[in-house]
C-alpha cells in the first residue's frame, strides 16, 4: 500500500521473531519491535546486548538466522533491501575517510545515494553549515577533533534527507551545547518531516528527553518496550512524591510518615521523598501534606527515571515484554 506521496505506509519498522546466532552464541533471540513513523526510538542495552547486530540486520547488511517478519518503511527487507537503503541514513561507530576533506566525505556519500555532483556539493555545504563546520569543510578529516568527527558522521547520515535515521551514541564526544542542539534537531525533524530516528545510546537522561519510545535489549532479548514513562513505571513499581518545605520549616519525616498510604519516607537535600503503597494513595497524601501546618515550596510526583528502569531490567532479566507499538 502507498500513501498520497506514493510512499509505502505502515510502521517505519516492523519486526517479529528476529533471531541471529554466531555459531553457538545467540546474539538475538526472538526479537519483536514495531516503531511508528516519525517516532524517536531508543534501543537501550549493555555492551554485547545485540544492538549492533539489530542495526545491521535492520539495514540489510547482515542476514538473520530466522525471522517471521522483517519490514522497514513498508517493504520486506529480505527481498527489497536495495529499495529501502536510499531512504535510510546510518551513523554507527565507524570512521570517516580521514584523508578526504569533510566536504568530500559528505559529497561522495551524497553521490552514493544517487545525487548528482552539484546537488551533493550543495547538500554537503548545507550540512557543514548546520553543524558549524563551514570554515573547516576543505580540511582533511584527520585534523578534526573527536567531536567534529562525530558531527560529520551524523551529517553524513543525513546527507540524502533520509526518512529513517539510525544513530549510534550520537552525542558521544559532543559538548553539551552541541548535544542539546542535536536533540532539538531530532525532535524537530521527527515532528515536522515525520522522519523516524532509531537511536542506540547509553545516555539514558538524553534518551528519556528525546525518545517517544524505547526498548531495553539484554542478552539478545527485549526486556521491555514502550514509551519511556511506561517502561519506567512498569520496571520500577513504586509511587514516590517529593515534598519540598519552605526554608526553615520544622517539617520532619515523621510528619509525613503519619499520613495515610505512606510506605517509607526518605530525607533528601532540601526536602523529603515519600514512597506510597499505591498510585491511588497519591491524592489523599497530597491533601494530607497541604493540610499540615508547614509552608511548602512544592509537592510533586517523582516518577521513576529511565535509568532506574534500565538498571532494574538489565539487572533482573525479566521475561520479555509483549510486542508494543512505540
Amino acid at each position, binding site marked *: 500500500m502507498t500513501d498520497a506521496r506514493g510512499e509505502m505506509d505502515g510502521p517505519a519498522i516492523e519486526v517479529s521473531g528476529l533471531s541471529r546466532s*554466531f555459531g553457538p552464541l545467540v546474539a538475538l533471540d526472538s526479537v519483536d519491535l514495531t516503531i511508528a513513523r516519525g517516532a524517536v526510538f531508543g534501543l537501550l542495552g549493555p555492551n554485547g546486548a545485540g544492538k549492533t547486530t539489530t542495526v545491521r540486520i535492520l539495514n540489510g547488511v547482515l542476514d538473520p538466522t530466522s525471522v517471521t517478519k522483517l519490514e522497514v518503511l513498508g517493504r520486506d527487507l529480505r527481498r527489497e533491501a536495495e529499495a529501502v537503503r536510499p531512504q535510510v541514513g546510518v551513523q554507527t561507530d565507524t570512521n570517516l575517510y580521514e584523508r578526504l576533506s569533510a566536504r568530500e566525505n559528505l559529497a561522495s556519500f551524497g553521490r*552514493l545515494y544517487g545525487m548528482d555532483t552539484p546537488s551533493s556539493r550543495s547538500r554537503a555545504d548545507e550540512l557543514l553549515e548546520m553543524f558549524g563546520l563551514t570554515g573547516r569543510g576543505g580540511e582533511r578529516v584527520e585534523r578534526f577533533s573527536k567531536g567534529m568527527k562525530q558531527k560529520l558522521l551524523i551529517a553524513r547520515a543525513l546527507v540524502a534527507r533520509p526518512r529513517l535515521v539510525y544513530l549510534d551514541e550520537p552525542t558521544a564526544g559532543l559538548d553539551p551545547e552541541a548535544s542539546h542542539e542535536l536533540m532539538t534537531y531530532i525532535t524537530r525533524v521527527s515532528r515536522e518531516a515525520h522522519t523516524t530516528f532509531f537511536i542506540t545510546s547509553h545516555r539514558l537522561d538524553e534518551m528519556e528527553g528525546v525518545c517517544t519510545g524505547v526498548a531495553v535489549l539484554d542478552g539478545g532479548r527485549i526486556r521491555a518496550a514502550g514509551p519511556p514513562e511506561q517502561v519506567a513505571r512498569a520496571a520500577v513499581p513504586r509511587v514516590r512524591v517529593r515534598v519540598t518545605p519552605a526554608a526553615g520549616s520544622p517539617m520532619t519525616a515523621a510528619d509525613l510518615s503519619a499520613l495515610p498510604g505512606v510506605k517509607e519516607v526518605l530525607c533528601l537535600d532540601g526536602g523529603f521523598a515519600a514512597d506510597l503503597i499505591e498510585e491511588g494513595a497519591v491524592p489523599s497524601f497530597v491533601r494530607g501534606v497541604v493540610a499540615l501546618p508547614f509552608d511548602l515550596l512544592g509537592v510533586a510526583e517523582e516518577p521513576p527515571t529511565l535509568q532506574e528502569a534500565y538498571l532494574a531490567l538489565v539487572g533482573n532479566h525479566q521475561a520479555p515484554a509483549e510486542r508494543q507499538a512505540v
Partner: protein
Amino acid sequence: MRWSRAWTVATKDMRETFSTAQLVVPLIIVPLVVVVGYPSLFLLALRLTPGSVEGLQGFLSGFPDSAIPAIPHLTSAGRAAYVAIVYLFAGFFLLVPVMVSTVVAANSFAGEKERRTLEGLLYTPVSDSELVVGKISAAFVPTIVFTWGCFAVYTAIVDLLGIPVVGQLFFPTASWWVLMLLLVPAVSLLVISIVVLISAKARGFQEANAIGGSVILPVIGLVAAQASGLMVLSSGLIAATALLFALVDAALLYLIVRVFKRSRIVSYLP
C-alpha cells in the same frame, strides 16, 4: 547496476589510496628501478664500453635471426641493445602492473576494514555488484595509467639512449603495443579480481597483500618469464594470450558479481 555509483566508490578509493605515502612510495621506487634504472644502465654500458657485448654473445645466439629486423650497419652492440630492450625487459612490464595492482587491490576491502570505514559504506544504497566493480576499478584504473606511464618513460629513455646504439628508431614495436594495450590490462584485471576477493575476506591490508602476493606472483612470474618468448614469436600470439586472459577475466568477474554479498563481509567485522 549504476556505473556512476561504482565510479564514486572507485574515485573515493583512489583518492584515499594515493594520499597514503606508505602505499605510494614503494609503487614509485620499484618501477623506477625497473623501468628507468635497468635499461638506462644497460644502454649506457653498451655505449661507453662496447666491448662488454662480447660477454652477451651466448645470450644473443639464443635469439633467431628473424627476431631482429634488417637494420643497416647494425653492430653487435646494437643487436644486444635491440634484443634487451624489445625482448628481455618485456617481462618487467607484466610484473609492474601485477605489483601495483596487488598492493592497491589488497588495500580495497581490507584497508577499509582496518581503518573502520567499510561498515559506513555498506549501509549506503550501493549495490553489491556496484561495490565490487567500484573496488576493482579503483585498482584497475591506476594500474593501467601507471603502467602506461612507465611505458611512456621507458620508450623515451630507450629511444634517447638506444637510437645511437641501434642506428635508427626501433621502439616501440608492434608486439609492444599489443602487450601494453591488450595483455597488460587482461593480466591486471585477473590479478585485481583475485586480490579484491582475498581482500574482502582478509582482516587487514598486510594479510591481504601477503596472501594475494603469494597466490598471484608465482603464476604471473611464470607468464613474465615466458614474455620474451612470446615477444619473439608474434604479436598475434600475444593477442591470443591476452584474449585467453580476457575470457578468464570475464568468467571470474561474472562469478564475483554473482557471489559477492555484503552480508558475508559484515560477518567478518567486529
